[in-house]
């Protein structure tokens, strides 16, 4: 694995390892290393507390997170995600 974690790599990893049906990555790199804000929608989050969801993401992206300067995540189930998007419309 290369030392730089690209958005493409992160997106692919999330889709594969977390069976994410939707991934959004915002690059907040402000000159002091890569910083990513990630929205993950996956049915694997169903029935899990916020801490458990974040721990799952941390575990699946262990190698990547260790290389990223700052990593921020928002995790939603498909149901939560679709109801959020309906509210916005």
């Amino acid at each position: 694995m290369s030392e730089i974690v690209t958005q493409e790599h992160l997106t692919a990893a999330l889709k594969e390892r977390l069976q994410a049906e939707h991934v959004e990555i915002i690059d907040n790199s402000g000159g002091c290393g890569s910083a990513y804000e990630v929205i993950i929608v996956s049915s694997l989050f169903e029935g899990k507390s916020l801490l458990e969801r974040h721990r799952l993401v941390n575990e699946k992206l262990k190698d990547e997170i260790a290389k990223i300067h700052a990593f921020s995540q928002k995790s939603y189930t498909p149901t939560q995600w679709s109801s959020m998007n309906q509210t916005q419309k």
Partner: protein
Amino acid sequence: VRARLLSNSLRSKLDKAVKNNDLVLFMKGTPDQPLCGFSRAAVQILGVQGVDLTKHKTFNVLEDDELREGIKEYSSWPTIPQVYIKGEFIGGTDILLNMHQSGDLEELLSSKGL
């Protein structure tokens, strides 16, 4: 091979700190002078909730490299800041912010008498 980062003495120091203090914040910098946006956000969220950090235990991980790496292993959590309430790991800034917005943080703090 990844070196073991958490010595027994650090582990017992951390056990003691999180068990003997109602709230512990591991951060970059100090509450008066946070040195990272994530740590600043954590301090601000707790401040809005009425938590007076001068009355609680905070650790500046930038002052101690062993602590900086060791706390990640201790909590099985890859990033700083980290918040413990009554010995229980709560999470980092994403979780604090989410709990703050949903009202869960206020509920947790008041249920713990904080």
